């Protein structure tokens, strides 16, 4: 139980799942690791259960839309993990194709992911496979579109109420 540096965290991950981490961005403001989408569920389990890592708290899930990337339109899902015992943190990124953004749900690993994933689905349109109830959470149930996609246009009116007035 000790605070680990980012290098040690990656070492632990690679020791158990050598294929999972596809990219390490250590020169940014926060060090970020990029995990392959298909490996993410296993990585999440490992992060939580390995006592050296002990990431028991999922702080935040962020979906970011990048429609104009050189390597193809992408959606990034960013997970901010935190350890209440070890006091270290980790930012994990999963890159998904924008046309069909699918990633495994981690609500079984962290219960808080339930609502966070629903929110990300609602606003960014990422589909979390295996989520028990992936429906809209913030917008109205019959809302159309995912508002935080960069090409989103708000509806002119919704149920007879004028929406765009300028």
């Amino acid at each position, binding site marked *: 139980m000790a605070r680990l540096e980012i290098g040690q965290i990656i070492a632990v991950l690679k020791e158990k799942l050598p294929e999972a981490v596809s990219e390490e961005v250590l020169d940014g403001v926060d060090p970020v690791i990029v995990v392959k989408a298909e490996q993410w569920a296993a990585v999440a389990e490992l992060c939580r259960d390995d006592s050296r890592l002990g990431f028991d708290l999922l702080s935040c899930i962020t979906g970011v839309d990048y429609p104009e990337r050189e390597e193809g339109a992408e959606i990034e899902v960013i997970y901010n993990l935190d350890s209440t015992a070890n006091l270290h943190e980790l930012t994990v990124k999963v890159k998904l194709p924008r046309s069909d953004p699918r990633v495994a749900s981690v609500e079984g690993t962290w219960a808080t992911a339930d609502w966070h994933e629903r929110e990300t689905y609602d606003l960014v349109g990422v589909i979390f496979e295996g989520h028990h109830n992936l429906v809209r959470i*913030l*917008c*109205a149930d019959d*809302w159309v579109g995912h*508002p935080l996609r960069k090409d*989103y246009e*708000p*509806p002119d009116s*919704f*149920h*007879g*109420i*004028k*929406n765009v*007035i*300028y």
Partner: protein
Amino acid sequence: MTEIENRNPDPLTKNVVLMTAVDDIINATRANSVWPLTFGLACCAIEMMATGAAKYDLDRFGSGPFRGTPRQSDLMVVAGTVTHKMAPRVKRLYDQMPEPKYVIAMGGCVIRGGPYVKHGYHVVKGVDLVIPVDVYIPGCPPRPEALLEGIFKVQKLMKREKILDRTRRTTKPEVYQPV
């Protein structure tokens, strides 16, 4: 503070002298006992609570009893941001209130969407798209004094009512029907 002109276009009831004394009494009682609906949406609701609480004490003007149910309230203070998800509920609550009923739009968001007017895709740009509003109180959020002033405006409006006048009921614009 804007107030809507009391609309009484009906020439039949506009100048009924006989009823003025009765009107005066009834309007005075109504104006001095404006019971607001406990209906907070967002930040403005906190200022509304502050208005009802120790320092500003809305109860001095007879508006103290915040009723939890629309059936027993005379005034709906729409305090906060109305969203598209909430709009049908606002409309329903308004419909559930007994006549005569009044609406105060408190804060920028309910007047015209406030800071969310441009990018707030989910925000109703003004509660008057959903229900008719009598008094608008600008501010983000308005101070409790502003809400008090708004309630005084409502009292003024109430004092101009005619009990024979049914136009108030019929001229309410049916802006929006929840689906």
